[in-house]
Every structure is written in structure tokens, then in C-alpha cells.
């Protein structure tokens, strides 16, 4: 069975229907890769209704969210766990990630992040909820 997975903007083109797990894993991979190389690429994953709570501060809308993400400096990520659950409505997916990250040349730190992806069209998702926390020793 061949699956043609192309992750561009919010569109995930498939030959076969992707499970929530597969959508989540493709999303997480795309998300962190772009966060590291060019956070402004993440803009297409959010819209005006997206909410980010970053270290306790809440931001609404893609513009504000990307402004935050582009202000941090270079971050590299190392995901440890990815948990996926279908959400309340049939077209939403909950994802909880734990792992480590490094900001610039600082020591690695633990982090955990939650996403709720909501379908905006067939096989198209945007991030409706994003919650990010560093975990201090």
C-alpha cells in the first residue's frame, strides 16, 4: 500500500485515509523541524482563532503566535513521547508531546506541549490550541 504524504502548509495529501495517529505524527515532525529552521513557516498552521499559552502567557491569532515563536532564538527539539487522542468533535485531534529542547547554546531542558488540531477541510488541519511549558528540574 502506497501512501503519498506531502506536508505543505496545512495540507496533507493522501492516497489512503490517514489515521489520527498518522496525521499527528506528520504534524509533529513538520512542526518541530520548521520551528528549528524557520519559525515563520509555522504561520500557515495557525489562524485568527488559534490560541497559544506559552509559559503562562496567552496569545490569540497566528500573527501574535508567530511573533512569539520568532522571538525566542534558535531552538532544537528532541521529542521523547507523542500521545494522540481523537478530540470531542469528530474532526479534532489532541496531541501531547514531552521531550527535551535546547535554546541557543544553553543546557538542554525538559518541555511538554499540547496541541489540538481541528480540520479546516478534508485532510487539512490547523492548530486551534497550543500550550507550551518548560519543565524545570
Amino acid at each position, binding site marked *: 500500500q502506497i501512501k503519498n504524504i506531502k506536508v505543505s502548509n496545512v495540507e496533507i495529501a493522501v492516497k489512503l485515509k490517514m489515521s489520527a495517529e498518522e496525521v499527528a505524527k506528520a504534524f509533529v515532525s513538520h512542526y518541530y523541524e520548521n520551528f528549528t529552521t524557520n519559525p515563520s513557516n509555522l504561520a500557515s498552521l495557525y489562524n485568527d482563532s488559534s490560541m497559544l499559552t506559552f509559559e503562562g502567557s496567552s496569545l490569540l491569532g497566528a500573527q501574535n503566535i508567530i511573533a512569539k515563536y520568532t522571538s525566542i532564538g534558535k531552538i532544537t527539539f528532541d521529542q521523547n513521547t507523542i500521545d494522540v487522542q481523537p478530540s470531542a468533535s469528530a474532526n479534532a485531534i489532541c496531541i501531547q508531546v514531552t521531550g527535551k529542547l535546547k535554546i541557543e547554546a544553553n543546557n538542554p531542558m525538559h518541555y511538554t506541549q499540547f496541541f489540538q488540531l481541528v480540520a479546516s477541510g478534508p485532510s487539512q488541519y490547523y492548530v486551534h490550541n497550543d*500550550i507550551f511549558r518548560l519543565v524545570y528540574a
Partner: protein
Amino acid sequence: AEQLAQAFVQQYYNTFDQNRAGLAGLYQPHSKLSFEGQLFTGSQEIGNKLTSLKINQCKHEMTTVDVQDNRPLGAGQGILVFVTGNIYMDSANPVKFAQTFLLHEAVPNSGQWYVLNDIFRLNYG
């Protein structure tokens, strides 16, 4: 939403730490729990998993609680609560944990909230 969420998680962890048998009542037949990577569905399965954990004494200590109101997504879309903290299990050193709850009202505006989605992970190392 913030106050409700704080009150709910406090009640949840108190129940977990003092009377795990009471947790099943916080879930519904379509609720889902991911516990350390294993998926359980429905209050019975979830209740069984949580009461079967081999922990005699347990204490959850919340470090951070973040709340997002999910209702802009549509009527009855609930409240998201994201918790990080420490869990003390028997005499072991505290272990960090991360937990996400999606809270829903069984009947809109009833004030009776339950856990629809629950994702729990311990953070080692």
C-alpha cells in the same frame, strides 16, 4: 473557565490521592485516557486501570496549570487544562508528570463537568 478548571483539577487529584475508586465517576462511556502510552476508553475501563495501579500512597503536586476555553470552537466544546507537576508514589522520589484534560459538560450549562480526554505522562531523565 479558569476557576472551574482549577477547582476541577484540584478535586481530581484529591480524589486520585485519597480515593481512587471515586475517579470513575469523573469519566463517561466515551471518555478516553492515555496512561503512559496505553489507551483506555470509558469510565469502567479507565476506573479499573486507575484503581489497579500498584501505588499505596500517592500525592500529586501541581507546578503549573494552564487553561484554554475551547468553547469558541462551538457549543459544548469544553475547557482544556494542561498540568505539569510532581507525583510522589509510595516512598519513591518525586517524578515529574504532564497531564492534559479536556473537560466537557454532560448537559450544556448543567455545571456538571467530566473528563472527556485525559493524557498522562511521567517525565523521567
